[in-house]
């Protein structure tokens, strides 16, 4: 199906059924992609976006999982914190960018934090959900078989929540990428998002589509990687995910 679609596009572009200027042939885009990845700006932009994404993800994942777990096991803490999380969660985190630019200035900290904020709330909510929706009988098993306190947490609660934590990490990674590309559109002068934007302005469409394709490929590869990691670490899971 995708191959047929690409072939159709290729033909339409070659025969000038659609404007080759706006819709260059996929082979043209592919050639630019290969060419610019090593020699030109594409490779550099990819690395910049990847570095921002890695940093943003790490900044979100560690505190996000910790906060989610803490909210899951400590009722009073959850009651105190949940309204804030629920309040901020649906706000598109790109809306935080102006605020962060004001307090941090235009620069990497504000960019990366916007991406991190995007992933953070998703990771918190997924982790919390994992703890809250675990089979309550497993807690009874823990109690009846002598696992209390920290032991109950490490041996029962955390493993039970791990699949949901992985789901949260995967969704969070995607959200961070979305936010970062948007940040690069708006404020950053580097990265794949910036490249898409700049080539759009200059109407150098093959480069624009090439950068576009790289963003998609980046998301796909990283999500697949996390999936593979999950399949490896959580091989006990019944269903494929």
């Amino acid at each position: 199906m995708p191959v047929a679609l690409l072939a159709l596009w290729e033909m339409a572009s070659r025969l000038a059924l659609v404007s080759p200027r706006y819709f260059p042939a996929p082979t043209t885009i592919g050639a630019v992609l290969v060419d610019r990845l090593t020699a030109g700006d594409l490779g550099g932009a990819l690395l910049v976006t990847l570095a921002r994404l890695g940093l943003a993800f790490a900044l979100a994942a560690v505190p996000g999982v910790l906060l989610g777990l803490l909210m899951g096991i400590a009722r009073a803490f959850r009651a105190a914190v949940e309204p804030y999380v629920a309040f901020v969660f649906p706000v598109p985190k790109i809306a935080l960018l102006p605020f962060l630019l004001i307090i941090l200035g235009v620069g990497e900290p504000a960019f990366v934090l916007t991406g991190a904020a995007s992933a953070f709330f998703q990771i918190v909510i997924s982790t919390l959900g994992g703890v809250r929706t675990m089979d309550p009988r497993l807690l009874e098993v823990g109690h009846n078989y002598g696992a209390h306190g920290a032991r109950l947490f490490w041996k029962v609660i955390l493993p039970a929540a791990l699949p949901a934590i992985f789901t949260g990490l995967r969704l969070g990674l995607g959200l961070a990428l979305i936010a970062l590309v948007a940040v690069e559109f708006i404020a950053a002068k580097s990265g794949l998002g910036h490249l898409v934007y700049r080539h759009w302005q200059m109407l150098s469409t093959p480069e624009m589509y090439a950068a576009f394709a790289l963003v998609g490929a980046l998301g796909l590869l990283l999500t697949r990687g996390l999936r593979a990691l999950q399949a490896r670490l959580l091989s006990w899971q019944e269903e494929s995910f």
Partner: protein
Amino acid sequence: MPTPVPKVLVNEVSVTFESHRRSVLALDRISLQAHAGEFLCVVGPSGSGKSTLLRVLAGLLRQSAGEVRIEADHPGSPLTAMVFQEHALLPWRTVRDNVTFGLENRGVGRAEREARAREMLAMVGLTRFAAHYPHQLSGGMKQRVGIARALASDPEVLLMDEPLAALDAQTRTIMQEELLRIWAALGKTVVYVTHSLEEALLLGDRIVLLSARPGRVSRIYPVDLGRPRGLEVRASPAYGALLETIWARLREEVVRAMAEDRGPDPDRASA
């Protein structure tokens, strides 16, 4: 015959569940005993609090009133180990690690744990499946693991909460025979909750019949059908007579429970 020692003593135990608006009396002044080595079956209609009683015995739930005592004869052994409905195995642990879960939590060394797991898995016929994960097993095999897990803990009292209810009829029959064999070999005190009177008659030394909500002890029946007991006991006249006697009483309770489910008695709703 020496006077039997009460291994489990339940004295005037009541459990009330408190929710936002109302409180529901689940168990109403239950009193019963199980002797050392006895197989005690608890039967009653749905909502008679059978599982609640087991949870109180397991220490998973605190009674609102009354006293529960379990005689500890072996220092270092846990008081109870529960076999749960639908097994409740830890899905991220292999069969072997599920079986040794209780021992691990008590700090038993690895070598001893593994020896014990081997012994218990052999007893339930799962030696070849030690390294499997629960999702790779059939329902009957999972429940065998649940039983092995409980036995590995070597508890003072084995608690079983409708352990065979989720299995198909043939598997259940086979598991009943297995249970009889294992119980005969180990001589454990068992408190066994079931909704099946036939199962209770096949397995039990005595049957405690609970009434519909709130659970009260309706009557306690000795099961004088001899030991060792097998499936053939079902053909004996004594079995049929006992089944009829208890069923007549259980039927009343079930009908009463169904009537209450259709429309709650306003006098009882806020007991």
